């Protein structure tokens, strides 16, 4: 798996210019190819496979309290066009510089319930939040 998959996937699909669905969070520029220096990305399949949805966190975006605002998986691959909410199976958190902080992916909306932690510069498969993810919060 791992972080490099984000870059490889991005390079393979680089010709497609995609935009995620508009959200109420103006401070969350989409980064569908997961190419940004500080990008949080959710993948439709385990091990960073399938379609991906990503966000550029360099603007100080704190996360979606409800992933219904996070749009759909739009890059080519399994899951393309499927809503992100409750359908992500793995995640990556790319980080510029020294890798500090994390993103927490919650089972429930409003950043409640148990969560999976995705540390900066890591790639993980989500556990219970696999296919049951409702919000995420940037720390």
């Amino acid at each position, binding site marked *: 798996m791992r972080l490099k998959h984000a870059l490889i996937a991005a390079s393979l699909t680089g010709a497609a210019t995609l935009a995620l669905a508009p959200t109420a969070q103006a401070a969350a520029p989409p980064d569908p190819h997961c190419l940004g220096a500080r990008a949080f990305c959710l993948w439709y399949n385990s091990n960073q496979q399938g379609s991906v949805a990503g966000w550029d966190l360099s603007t100080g975006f704190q996360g979606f309290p409800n992933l219904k605002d996070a749009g759909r998986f739009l890059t080519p691959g399994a899951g393309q066009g499927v809503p992100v909410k409750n359908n992500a199976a793995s995640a990556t958190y790319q980080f510029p510089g*020294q890798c500090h*902080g994390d993103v927490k992916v919650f089972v429930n909306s409003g950043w409640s319930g148990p969560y999976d932690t995705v540390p900066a510069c890591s790639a*993980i498969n989500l556990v219970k939040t696999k296919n049951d993810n409702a919000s995420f919060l940037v720390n």
Partner: protein
Amino acid sequence: MTRPTRRRVGRSRLPIALLACGACLITASCTTGGEEDAPAAEPSAPPTVHTTPSAGARPGPLPLDGHFLSREDHEKLRSALDLLVAACMKRAGVPLPPAPAVAAEPPRHERRYGISTPEQAARYGYHLAERTTPPTPPPVTARQQRALSGTPDGKPGPGGSPPQGCNAAAAERITGTDSFPADALVVRQLNMDSFEQSKNDARVRIVLRKWSDCMKGDGFSYTDPLAAPRSMAAGPRASAREIATARADVACKEKTRLIGVWSAVESAYQNRLIKERAKELTAARREHDDRLRRAAEVLRSFAPSS
């Protein structure tokens, strides 16, 4: 795509009347604070709760907490990784961007059972209190980014930096993968299992029903407190209705002792899971210890010689 398996949890054999008896809300045989070593229950039976549910509204620690990456261990690992990344960037002649500040880590179970503080509910509803925005990291140049995160074509990066980037190269030294250390899969799995099992436990379902009835009395219709944040208003501020919902939510939690009961029941499930999955947890601990050992070697190798 594989969908998660929903575990079925056996029904409680305890008479329901026993579940709401005075201070001992969970079971007729509860004891205060003691360690439990009850005879092994049949696998499908709900575990016995041996602790008195806290009357407090804030969630306390859970037995599995000690299996997550501790703050101290995290600091050790991060210090070693920081040194490796800095050295890699120096070798490549690419200046390392300054380390960005990170928002303070909230208590682990802050919102596990939903919000819990009346003050926060009254002021922010379900919105976040202090950490409205995490610190914005300083800008990173394209050259720095390639050196840190790698190149998509698999060729060496700026200044001969590794193709996978200095971050991944540092991670390989500590974790054996190009990913920075995360909590062990088995720990994360059990953490989710205990939550789901306890949520479906008859003792928790009773208190959830009481909470729901209490909310109905205040004019709000929710089956459980994890559904209530759906009332969150879009945007940075809570609406009047959201605040009213959040206040009723916390007041009903206090009235029904929901957090204390749920937390006590979930603790019992976690204790059982810890026993059942001891081998896997030990293996995860061993892997973690190996990473700490490698981190200590790195820290020693960078320490100034006396």
